[in-house]
């Protein structure tokens, strides 16, 4: 693990991480088969 990983993230870094690993409600509904 390098030192960069301990640096405070900016908004774009947070958004990239969140968008990659978590879903908006529509995606959750689609994946679960909800109409």
């Amino acid at each position, binding site marked *: *693990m390098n030192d*960069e*990983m*301990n*640096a*405070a*993230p900016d*908004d774009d*870094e*947070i*958004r*990239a*991480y*969140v*968008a*990659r*690993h*978590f*879903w*908006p*409600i529509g995606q*959750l*509904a689609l*994946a*679960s*088969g*909800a109409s």
Partner: protein
Amino acid sequence: MIYAFDRKGWWSALGGYRSGAVGRPSDDAERWYSPAAVWGLRRARLALRGGASIAEAAARNRAQFQADFIAALDAVPEAANAFRSCFGADGAVDHAAAEVQAGEEWSAWLKGGYAVCLRIFTGGTCVAKESLAATLKRHIADPASYPMDAGEILALCERLTQLMLPFSPWERPGCTPGVTIDRLLRALSLGCELPYSAVSAA
């Protein structure tokens, strides 16, 4: 909901706003949810198809979690390292204590406590994650009193990695994957996990 973004900034279920402000995201916030929840939604859909109400479907999900949790206490060899209170003096699972513990873990899930941790949240993954992490941390804290050889360490790290999300790059070093898997792989000179390489390349 696990993350949200609004005019006040980023909110997370675990940390609140980065500024430390208390409160919930505004109504127009962008919101993200844990994909770990999708299997619970699928089970709920099956229950609704069978005539259950939404409340009944939710109760069945909780009951399923509790049953899986107690079964996993019996099945996961390392479970007593994380859930000592769920075992009697004879080493057998204390069902009354296990039900109480299952209720606490279910509550933690609903509050977002596992949503950044686990790929899928079940009684089995909950017990396994907590037990494997506790076992590795116990070894790291005092290798002399809780020795493990390199093969045992690698096997536990492999099992734990299968269960977990990568965490964010800035949180991983101080959270379970960083203080167990990454630390031990580094100590054994067995390479490292690179969960962010695809993000960096994008």
